[in-house]
């Protein structure tokens, strides 16, 4: 204990007080006149049997099933929609013409190459005497 703490302790003890007989009697009389307030008791929790748990579970499941059933029953009936002929509905596109237009130069080139190849083949045959 440090110096200040010791000084404070000693100085507190130097304060001389005593409960007088008169005060003692007053306190005693007041205490006897007082009725302590009763503790506000909480109601004891009710112990629920296991059956309660099962009952609540089953009720919950039944309620869920009922909700699903109601939602499905109220849904509008589906009407049969005839299949759509996509080929008939889509306008024909002249793909062939377009392809021909795009590939014509290549085809001509191929024909020329094949002709050159054929000529070269005949020339080789003539040279070797076949």
């Amino acid at each position: 204990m440090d110096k200040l703490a010791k000084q404070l302790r000693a100085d507190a003890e130097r304060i001389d007080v005593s409960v007088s007989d008169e005060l003692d009697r007053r306190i005693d009389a007041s205490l006897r006149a007082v009725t302590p307030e009763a503790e506000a008791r909480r109601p004891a929790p009710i112990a629920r049997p296991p059956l309660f748990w099962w009952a609540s579970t089953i009720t919950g499941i039944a309620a869920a099933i009922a909700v699903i059933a109601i939602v499905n029953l109220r849904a509008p009936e589906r009407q049969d929609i005839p299949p759509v002929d996509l080929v008939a509905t889509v306008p024909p596109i002249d793909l062939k013409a377009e392809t021909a237009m795009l590939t014509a130069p290549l085809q001509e080139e191929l024909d020329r190459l094949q002709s050159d190849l054929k000529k070269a083949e005949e020339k080789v045959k003539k040279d070797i005497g076949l």
Partner: protein
Amino acid sequence: MTDELKLIAAAKAGSADAFADLVRGYRERLLRFLLTRSPSYADAEDVLQDTLINAFRYLHSYDSRWRFSTWLYRIAIRNAAKLRSPDLADVAIVGDLRDEENDPLQQCIVDSESDNLWLSAREVLNDEVYAAMWLRYAEDMSVKDIAKALDRSTSWAKVNLMRGRRVLETHMNDAADKSEAYG
């Protein structure tokens, strides 16, 4: 079960005798503390009486995790605060209400010729810090209990005990310097 717990149980059951036995050892300690916060000895006695009555009336709310003395001091501090009537709301500290010549604390100090630090503390500390210092150094209460008694946080109690100490140490040093200067 300790004797105190047995008495508490009996008092909770409504025994005024058990309660009187329970608080017998605390009455003078409480009165000494209340005297430092009251304008007169009679006021301190009245607050003590009210404190004990309230404690008995509401004993059912006592939580045995607390020290009984901490709970009693908490009630005493609240009752002492009621000494400040609404008409005196502007009065900062109880000390202002005291008649300097009839200061009950001054009158109760044995060997009053030498300086008593609690008198000085009352002048330089505010009410709450003074109470915290009293509970710590006169009642040897833990910081945690002080915080509970004053309805404050533990950190508040720590900080203010430190501040109170610093102020009092400065005061002690100043007083020592003065006495040296005057020979």
